[in-house]
Structures are given as structure tokens and as C-alpha cells.
């Protein structure tokens, strides 16, 4: 192999970096619309799952428009904040703000059984990374109608079980309030009693994820208490 001068090496590296940078930024810019569309569909899809409507990528948009009736943003006092699109609120960014400045998205849906369902997004920490999902409540704003959870990188077979129907299926019918006091839903290690309306079974081997999920539910839902109290019927 030839010997190359230092100058050659510098020029070579500089050209290489410019070519690669151009290529990558071009790809990122051109593919961005498609990628954002995917994320949007993903979000709508999980919202539909939380009210027990299975959607495919193809019919998500259509079903979303059919079932999700309105969306708005409230503050921690339970008052509506005008001029903010609930769908584009990024929960992770909101959670960094002081509580009174946080935007809290609310989505209203009416599934086929006619129940007026309220969907709220939740996000928290699992073992390896963020966990997130949607919790939908019946019109009494107390009973859980459905939930959907997802995660960035929990351990498959252990923490990752939170997004399986087996785990999510335990939530419908559970109650958030006990005689008017907010207690959220606990994730019980060793299994919740069958008649416990505030507890579900934890995941064996997924203790930290289970705990994270329990904290996520408590922290995120409690911000809505004022709203719930004002709008309960």
C-alpha cells in the first residue's frame, strides 16, 4: 500500500465527512414526513387500543376520526387551556415544567357501547427506559375502561410483558378512587386479591418495571384529580 502524506489524509477525511454528512442529512430530510406520519399513526393506534378498539395501520386514521370525538388541554386546576393542540403535546417535555404550567391532554371518545370515555396519556420510567401508554376511564371518571402500555426497551419476557393483553386485561373495571380519595391502581407483587378493585398482579421478574408502572399511573393521573372532581357525574 502507498504511503500518503499528512495533507492527503486531512483532505481525504474532510471530503469524506462532507460527503457523508450531505448524504445523511438528505436522507433524514426526505424521509422525515413518512417517519412522522408513522409516529402519528402509532399514537392514534394506541389511543384506540386503550378503548379496546383493535386497529391496523391502514384503518387507524379512519377509526380515530370515527371514535375520538374531541381533544383539549387542561391545567392542573382542571381548567381548559385554549389554543393548544392536545395531540401534539409531548408529555415528557411537560413533566419537566412546574406543575401549574403543565399542559394535560384529554381525549374524549365514544366506543360502540355508547360509553362516554375519557382518555388520558401517561408516561413514566421503567427499568431500562421510558414506559408510556393511555388510560381510558368510564363516564364516572373513576372506573378504568381500558389501558394500553408500551415501552422503549424493557426486558422481553419480563418487564416487556406490560404491553401484553394478559397484563393490560387486568385493568378494566379497576377503580381509581376509594370513597372520593385518590388511590390509583397498585401493582401487587405476589398477586392482588381477586376482589381488590385497586390492585392488579405484578409481573414476576419485572418488579422494577411493575413499580415504575404503578408510579407512572399515580403521578400522571393525580394531576387530573381537580378536573375529575369538576366533571364527575
Amino acid at each position, binding site marked *: *500500500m*502507498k504511503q*500518503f502524506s499528512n495533507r*492527503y*489524509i486531512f483532505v*481525504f*477525511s474532510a471530503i*469524506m*465527512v462532507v460527503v*457523508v454528512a450531505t*448524504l*445523511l442529512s438528505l*436522507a*433524514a430530510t426526505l*424521509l422525515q414526513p*413518512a*417517519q412522522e406520519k*408513522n409516529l402519528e*399513526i*402509532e399514537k392514534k393506534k394506541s389511543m384506540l387500543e386503550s378503548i379496546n378498539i383493535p386497529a391496523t*395501520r391502514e384503518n387507524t386514521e379512519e377509526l380515530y376520526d370515527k371514535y375520538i370525538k374531541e381533544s383539549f388541554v387542561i391545567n392542573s386546576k382542571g381548567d381548559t387551556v385554549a389554543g393548544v393542540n392536545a395531540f401534539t403535546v409531548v408529555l415528557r417535555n411537560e413533566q419537566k415544567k412546574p406543575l401549574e404550567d403543565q399542559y394535560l391532554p384529554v381525549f374524549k371518545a365514544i366506543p360502540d357501547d355508547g360509553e362516554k370515555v375519557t382518555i388520558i396519556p401517561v408516561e413514566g420510567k421503567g427499568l431500562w427506559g421510558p414506559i408510556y401508554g393511555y388510560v381510558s376511564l368510564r363516564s364516572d371518571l373513576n372506573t378504568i375502561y381500558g389501558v394500553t402500555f408500551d415501552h*422503549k*426497551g424493557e426486558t*422481553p*419476557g419480563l418487564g416487556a410483558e406490560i404491553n401484553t393483553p394478559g397484563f393490560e386485561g387486568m385493568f378494566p373495571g379497576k377503580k381509581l378512587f376509594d370513597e372520593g380519595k385518590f388511590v390509583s391502581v397498585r401493582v401487587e407483587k405476589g398477586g392482588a386479591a381477586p376482589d381488590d378493585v385497586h390492585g392488579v398482579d405484578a409481573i414476576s421478574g419485572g418488579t422494577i418495571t411493575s413499580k415504575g408502572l404503578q408510579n407512572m399511573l399515580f403521578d400522571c393521573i393525580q394531576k387530573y384529580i381537580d378536573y375529575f372532581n369538576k366533571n364527575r357525574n
Partner: protein
Amino acid sequence: MARQGKEPIFSAKNLRLLTDPVGDNNPITVQVLGICSALAVTVKLKPAIVMALSVIIVLTVSNVVISALRQYIPERIRIIVQLVVIATMVILVDQFLKAFVFDVSKQLSVFVGLIITNCILMGRLEAFAMANKPFPSLLDGIGNGAGYGLILVIVAFFREFFGSGTVYGYPILQKIGIFHTGYENNGMVILPPMALIFVGLIIWVQRSRNKSLIEKK
């Protein structure tokens, strides 16, 4: 490429570049490279196939690029250049997956990015592309990618079959009705260590068929 005209494009030597890594010089079972991703993405057939295709594309293109530039790459920074080429390709593939097969890209998550650290790639660039013309490098890339992919697909087939009772998402065992006989899916097969056992079984089969692969004592 002009000088290559003397040699037929698919000469025996060139064909062996394609077939060797699929069989007797397989990157996973013989060279024992790329094991990490083989454990991680083989729970289901679909992500395994996408992963295999991604590796084939990344490896082939990087091989050709490095081979075409091999006269111009300063030796002192060749490893950096190789890494830059691989990393660029991996990011491009990742972006395309995110845009067009979002579900699969979610399942593969970090492992697409980790193709960068897959030893097969650096190994082929350094050992082959730096010293050979673009066309043989192309074949070498396809061959090694396919050899890697083949093992991935075999392992994924068995893990999905025994672990989830499906083949490419199709619930075959349920259709046969075998669950009525008391058969249950083996949850352990889904865990990563079991992939190692499957890879081990493949190595066993391969070496018992071809004794020359067995190391001399």
C-alpha cells in the same frame, strides 16, 4: 473492472465467494462472529428476516465502497474510514426502516444501530474489501450477509415455532389443534440464552457433516 473481462463473471472462484460463507465458512457457526444480534433478533421470523436483509445490504454496499476506494484510503486511517462507511449505511437503513416498515423497526429497536458493531462487517471490510476488486467484494458481501442471515432465519424459525407456536406470525400449531392435547408453548425458547443453544445445535450438525471443520487437538 476492464481487466476482469478475462475472468468469467461467475467463475468457480467467484461463485465460491458466494457459497463458502453460507456453508463451510459461515460467519456465525464457523467464524463465530455476530452472535450478539443472533441472540437478540431471533424470537420471531419477521424481524430476523428484516435484520438479515439489512445486514446483507449494509455489508454488500460497504464492501463495494471500500473496495472501490481501496487505492485511495490512507492506511493509517483505514479503520476509521471503514467505520464511517458502515455507520453511514446503518443509519440510512435505519431511517428507511423507520419510514417504511415502522413496526419491524420498533421490534429491532437498537439492534439495527448495533449492526455497526457487528464484527462480521469490520472483519469483511478489513480482510477482504481492502485487498480485492469491487466485484468479488460484492459477492463476498452478499455471501457473508446471506450466511449470517441463513442462521438467523433458521434459529428464528425454531424459536418462533416452539416459543410462540407460530410461523411468520401464522398460528400454525393452533390451527392443527395441538393445544387440545395438552401441548404448551415453551416460554424458555423466547429467552435469549436458548438462541445460543440453537446456534450450538446448528454448529453440531454442521461439524458432524463436515469433519474438516473440527479443530485439531
